[in-house]
């Protein structure tokens, strides 16, 4: 049995990252490095109004005073910020009125990524905003959405066309000084998606953004802002890939979500940045700040994430439960293999009365990877009858990896109930034997058991995504029997 496991374990390390191609399109980049001039240049290139430049400069100055956080269970090599290109645009990537105008190579890229930009789009009913090297290249379904008053566009467009909304909400959930990476993002973010759902509107389709890092030596700093006005609803999906390169590339994104009274937002991520090769060379450093606020009463926010990529992941999609009776969920599957490192989890900050949160985290570690859950549940003094339930399970495949759980629970209200449970285990040999005895191969048995293990989370994803996520898991873990 052990031998078989070893063989299978070795097999998986040979598994190739299938999104690792490089697209050969011309890009316009600015020189490497970061300075106040670079920040000004980015803002100028994008033709931004003065308030944005002001905002960026404040963020940049704040960033200079901050240091990289060290508390995570991660070994992060030193990052030379002067060696990164902070702005890179596909040359033809100005504006597209129709699909025909899109560069065929770019279209080919998105096809390879499996993004159904054209006919499939209509079938799937997904509105897509694709961001490549930080710039939004195509937003589909814009008109259909506009009829309902929904704004779904690139951040660049939003800055120009909806400056009032931007000024009101940009940085309102993740202030520019929030942390090192958030400050960096605020200073240099190049594009991203903007969503506004007006009062009483149920967005009739899934909104979706695909992120792609293509150019070498670039960092991607996209920024997403979602505002769901009273009684509205939206489900938003995010996917990401990057080419295989030997050097590490930095991705420091910020996502802000504002949920008003009686509104609901679902945010799903399938993160599949290039994780580096089997020796731990290359891969994306994924340092992301995601936070939502349930601003009004009865607001609801749900985070679902499937994390399979990136060399290093530092990410804690969080929720501030401010409105009374508001609710938040965090469902996560994080898979690490080879030399990947992930320190991910959530923060639930309960401020309002009768607020509820639920955390379900499933970590799977294989190879020589380290996978940590880190979460904070904070019940403030006024959060009467607040409730949290957290469940954090870890599955270890192989004896070279590490799995860690760091929950922080801080309770200041007597009428609150907080429960945290965590288990760590491996796949039982008796379970595998049972499957074997019924004629199922060890490899399939592991797939079966892993799928059962993460089912609770995958069920939360929209259908098309769930299938994709399941495939991704299989690719990431094929054969890594514990």
């Amino acid at each position: 049995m052990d031998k078989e496991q070893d063989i299978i374990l070795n097999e998986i390390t040979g598994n190739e990252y299938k999104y690792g191609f490089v697209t050969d399109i011309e890009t316009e980049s600015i020189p490497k490095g970061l300075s106040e001039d670079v920040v000004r240049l980015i803002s100028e290139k994008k033709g931004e109004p003065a308030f944005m430049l002001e905002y960026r400069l404040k963020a940049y100055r704040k960033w200079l005073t901050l240091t990289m956080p060290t508390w995570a269970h991660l070994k992060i090599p030193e990052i030379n910020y002067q060696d990164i290109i902070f702005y890179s645009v596909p040359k033809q990537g100005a504006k597209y009125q129709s699909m025909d105008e899109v560069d065929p190579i770019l279209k080919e890229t998105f096809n390879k990524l499996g993004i159904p930009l054209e006919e499939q789009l209509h079938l799937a009913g997904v509105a897509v905003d694709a961001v490549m090297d930080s710039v939004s290249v195509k937003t589909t379904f814009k008109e259909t959405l506009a009829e309902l008053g929904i704004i779904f566009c690139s951040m660049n467009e939003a800055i120009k066309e909806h400056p009032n909304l931007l000024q009101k909400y940009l940085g309102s959930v993740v202030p520019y000084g929030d942390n090192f990476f958030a400050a960096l993002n605020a200073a240099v973010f190049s594009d991203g998606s903007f969503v506004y759902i007006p009062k009483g509107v149920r967005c009739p389709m899934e909104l979706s953004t695909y992120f792609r890092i293509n150019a070498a030596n670039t960092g991607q700093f996209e920024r997403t802002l979602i505002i769901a006005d009273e009684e509205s609803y939206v489900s938003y999906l995010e996917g990401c890939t990057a080419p295989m390169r030997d050097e590490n590339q930095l991705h420091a994104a910020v996502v802000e979500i504002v949920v008003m009274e009686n509104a609901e937002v679902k945010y799903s991520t399938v993160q599949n940045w290039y994780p580096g090769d089997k020796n731990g060379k290359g891969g994306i450093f994924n340092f992301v700040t995601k936070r939502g606020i349930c601003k009004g009463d009865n607001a609801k926010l749900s985070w679902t994430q499937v994390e399979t990529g990136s060399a290093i992941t530092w990410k804690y999609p969080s929720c501030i439960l401010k409105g009374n009776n508001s609710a938040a969920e965090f469902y996560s599957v994080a898979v690490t293999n080879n030399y990947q490192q992930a320190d991910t989890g959530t923060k639930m900050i309960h401020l309002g009365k009768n607020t509820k949160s639920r955390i379900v985290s499933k970590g799977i570690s294989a190879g020589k990877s380290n996978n940590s859950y880190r979460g904070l549940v904070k019940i403030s003094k006024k959060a009467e009858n607040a409730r949290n339930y957290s469940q954090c399970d870890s599955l270890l495949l192989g004896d070279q990896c590490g799995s860690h759980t760091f929950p922080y629970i801080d309770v200041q209200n007597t009428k609150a109930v907080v429960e945290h449970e965590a288990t760590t285990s491996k796949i039982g040999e008796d379970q595998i034997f049972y499957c074997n005895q019924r004629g199922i191969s060890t490899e399939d048995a592991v797939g079966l058991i892993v799928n059962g293990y993460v089912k609770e989370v995958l069920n939360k994803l929209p259908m098309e995504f769930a299938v994709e996520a399941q495939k991704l898991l299989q690719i990431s873990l094929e054969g890594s029997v514990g």
Partner: protein
Amino acid sequence: MNNELIARYKENENFLKDESSDLMNSVREKAFQQFQKLGLPDKNGEDYRYIELEKLFQGNFSSAFKPQKLSVDFSSLFQCNVPDLDSYIVLLVNGWYYYQNIKLDLPDGVLIGSLREMAKKHPDIFEKYYSKAASYYEDGLVALNTAYAQDGLFIYVPQNVVIEKPVQVINILVHDGDFMLQQRNLICCEENSNAKIVICDHTLTPFKFLNNSVTEVFVENNANLSIFNIQDQNNSSVHINAVHAKTKQNGVFTSNTASLHGGTIRNNFIATMEGANAEVNISGIYLMDRKQHIDNFTFVDHAVPDCVSNQLFKGILDDEATGAFNGRILVRKDAQRTNAFQRNNNVLMSDNARMASKPQLEIYADDVKCSHGATSGHINEDALFYLRSRGISEKEARLMIMLAFANEVIAKIDFAPLRERIEELVDKRLRGELSRCTNCVVNCG
């Protein structure tokens, strides 16, 4: 603060070294060097996040760098604790072993006495154990203790010896002003030995006592040691109680702590399993009110395969009391077939009380069963109503539920007189009656 502690050491270096064994003094010097580098742990590190050491160490403390002569009525102290416990009684006053009126009829080879004296009489034992469990390289508080340590409790149980009766250690702190001490205890259980120790911590005068104590524990192959600790000190006292234990093959180490009163209590339970089939059980109950602060920290290190560890900490916080539980299980790479469990349950009785709980798992082996859980909540209203609907008053019903909550920890104490006594103390404590023990002549305040 660090500078003051350093200066204080230099001023008193001669007193500290006087009559201490050469070994203790050479370790002392190294630890002092290290303390100068480390200083007191600050809040920026994860381990001491919920305690303000800098603030706690501020004050105008006196110290006793020589044994103190005090007339204490021994029989009254005896009553104050566990009346029906047939035990060997050992008394320590202000961290100094108080041997004047104690005659112990011990099994052959068992040594109980002053750390300082025993270090001189049995250098072989100290060579083997002293400062071998509590490392002063990493923890500034251990370094501080090791630099200042002069005396404390020493217990040595030789191979194959079973001490039937428990050893009851009474730690008395008494002074007419604020007082700082660095008590150092060493407990060694050789192969196949068996011992039970009951430790009672008391303050006799209402001043600020700052006790930065370190207890090193060694449980050798097949040995079995249990330590039961009742912490009952005044509301301005600060007790840093660091227990560093190493358990070898088939050894069993059990620690059960009832924290009833104290201004600030910080318990560090650092347990390493160094031999297969070792077992470590650490549990605690804490009942805090007013502005009391309880800070339980555990680090259970599964360094080898096939060991078992259990942690259970339960607490009730009222008024403006604050609490923290920071528990960590580490399963090292080759520690296969580990079973490690950890649970922390809290009940908050007041909106001004606050509890931070941080149970952690850090696992590098794959064939393990580990779980942890933490809850923080309030009294179950359905249960309360059920009891009241049977005619039990609300107050009494609350008490019953609280006692039932606490009882899970107390029930782990495996000998009856002590268990009953702690049950009684907890009951009284929950009724708000316990400010002093029954029959006690001293005023704990």
